[in-house]
């Protein structure tokens, strides 16, 4: 305690350079910079053939600078340059009203709501299955293989089936997409929770036995609190694949809204810039969701007195 106070008071605040050197921002920015350079170079090579053909048909002579400039400003490039995607995102996110069908915010919200609902379904289902598996020996042996098998079926194959079956009972829109998300994201929750609920060591369990605690008491006072760190690790995986599930769920329905629908429409009409901007927004959404789960995790674990 005293040494901490002494160092905190005695040492001057670190300068900008020291903070950049020791922090995480500089490494991340360096990697981002390298990626952007590789991307621009890649765009030149990917798009150059088409640009040369066009110039040839127009009978135009061109310099290398003109060629490079043209590969970075095509309307339907094979690989759009980063700034083209940025411009597209700016137009569809900030320049359109968010209620507009052409606003990417609107589409993102559609997908995000399916993701979150599926995530909630998946978490509830995953926890319930884990509780059953941990408490009933028969279910441990009978259910677990099916849980694992469920994940070996390609989601792209089963998603249309789910959509069709649910549509026949008049369930369309949000729910079917959520169910596909749930199908993907219950799995890591089940695996993590089974491990977490079984994590108390022999001594912690024997202690409960010396008190003649009931199974319910052992669950609420020992198994459940012990499983919380495991649960959050699983939830971070689950929210990310829940997003994948929601987007996949939008592909076979011919959905008119959502990030999946934008991807589909973009590929119909060869609008590569639209596809890429939807991809970038989808990954940003994924990041935001994972960060949100991490923030809740930190909050809950600090409430539970975790070591800082």
């Amino acid at each position, binding site marked *: 305690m005293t040494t901490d106070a002494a160092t905190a008071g005695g040492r001057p605040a670190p300068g900008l350079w020291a903070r950049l050197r020791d922090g995480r921002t500089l490494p991340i920015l360096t990697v981002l910079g390298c990626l952007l350079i590789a991307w621009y170079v890649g765009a030149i090579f990917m798009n150059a053939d088409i640009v040369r053909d066009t110039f040839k048909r127009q009978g135009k002579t061109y310099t290398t600078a003109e060629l490079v400039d043209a590969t970075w400003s095509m309307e339907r490039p094979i690989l759009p340059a980063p700034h083209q995607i940025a411009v597209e995102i700016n137009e569809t996110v900030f320049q359109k009203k968010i209620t507009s069908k052409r606003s990417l915010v609107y589409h993102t919200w559609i997908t995000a709501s399916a993701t979150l609902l599926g995530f909630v379904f998946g978490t509830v289902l995953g926890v319930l299955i884990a509780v059953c598996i941990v408490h009933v020996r028969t279910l441990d042996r009978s259910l677990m293989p099916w849980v694992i098998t469920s994940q070996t079926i390609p989601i792209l194959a089963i998603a249309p089936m789910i959509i069709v079956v649910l549509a026949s009972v008049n369930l369309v829109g949000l729910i079917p997409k959520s169910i596909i998300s749930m199908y993907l994201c219950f799995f890591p929750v089940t695996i993590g929770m089974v491990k977490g609920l079984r994590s108390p*060591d022999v*001594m*912690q369990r*024997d*202690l*409960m*036995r*010396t*008190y*003649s*605690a009931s199974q319910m*008491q052992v669950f609420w*006072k*020992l198994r459940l*609190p*012990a499983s*919380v760190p495991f649960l959050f690790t699983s939830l971070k995986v689950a929210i990310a694949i829940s997003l994948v599930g929601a987007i996949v769920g939008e592909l076979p329905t011919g959905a008119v809204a959502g990030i999946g629908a934008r991807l589909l429409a973009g590929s119909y009409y060869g609008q590569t810039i639209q596809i890429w901007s939807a991809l970038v927004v989808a990954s940003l959404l994924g990041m935001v969701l994972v960060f949100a789960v991490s923030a809740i995790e930190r909050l809950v674990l600090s409430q*539970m*007195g*975790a*070591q800082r």
Partner: protein
Amino acid sequence: MTKTVAQAAAIDRTAEGRRTVVEARDLSLVFETADGPVHALANVDLTIGENEFVSFIGPSGCGKTTLMRVIADLEQPTGGTISINGMTPSEARERRAYGYVFQAAALYPWRSVERNIALPLEIMGIPRAERKRRIEHYLDLVNLGGFGKKMPWQLSGGMQQRVSIARALCFDPDLLLMDEPFGALDEITRDHLNEQLIQLWAQTRKTVVFVTHSIPEAVFLSSKIVVMSPRPGRILKVIDCNLPADRRLDIRETPEFLAIAHEVREGLRAGHSYDD
């Protein structure tokens, strides 16, 4: 059946005229392992009277912890009989007859010190106000007053073990089972806690069963020392050890203390405990 045992126990007295708390007759326990049966306990006869402080001493693998776990109904004997207050171990456990202190503190890391002590009280359905009163009382008893809000990781190993002792005492069991509670601590802390424990025993007059592999610790704390030897785990010798009640650590320099320690060491040697 149970009733006759209970009645028999009510009139049962040890040789010193104490009420019998633990009574084992021809007790044995064989673990079936992949490498064949392991005789953890064989032909154990033992009587522990009320208010006694009994230590089990012996090398690793002599079954001292196993014997304690049989008393606590954490292991099932494969032969012989054992009764706790005239009841079977499982009946005694269901009536919360004993408090158990493990080798490690085994505090739940997500609970503060006071909520760790509250754990058995919550399970036993003791009302909040009474819980609060007892937590305060037993924290003071183990000299940890004011530490209630701390989290376990903020305490030293010795303090954590004292919390676990408070947790074992707070529901006021008559019998305290302690399985090498200070084994993982440094010698200075251990000496200090030994002195506190002897005072605690004098204040509460609990019956204590204590597992250790330290001869000075056993002699200093005990009113009776049970010397055990391994393969199969059995009792070699029971040594009475009635040092004055208000003893301090410096009693370890006295001839009486050294004579008993010598006797314990001779007992361990007789069991070839030093051979391997």
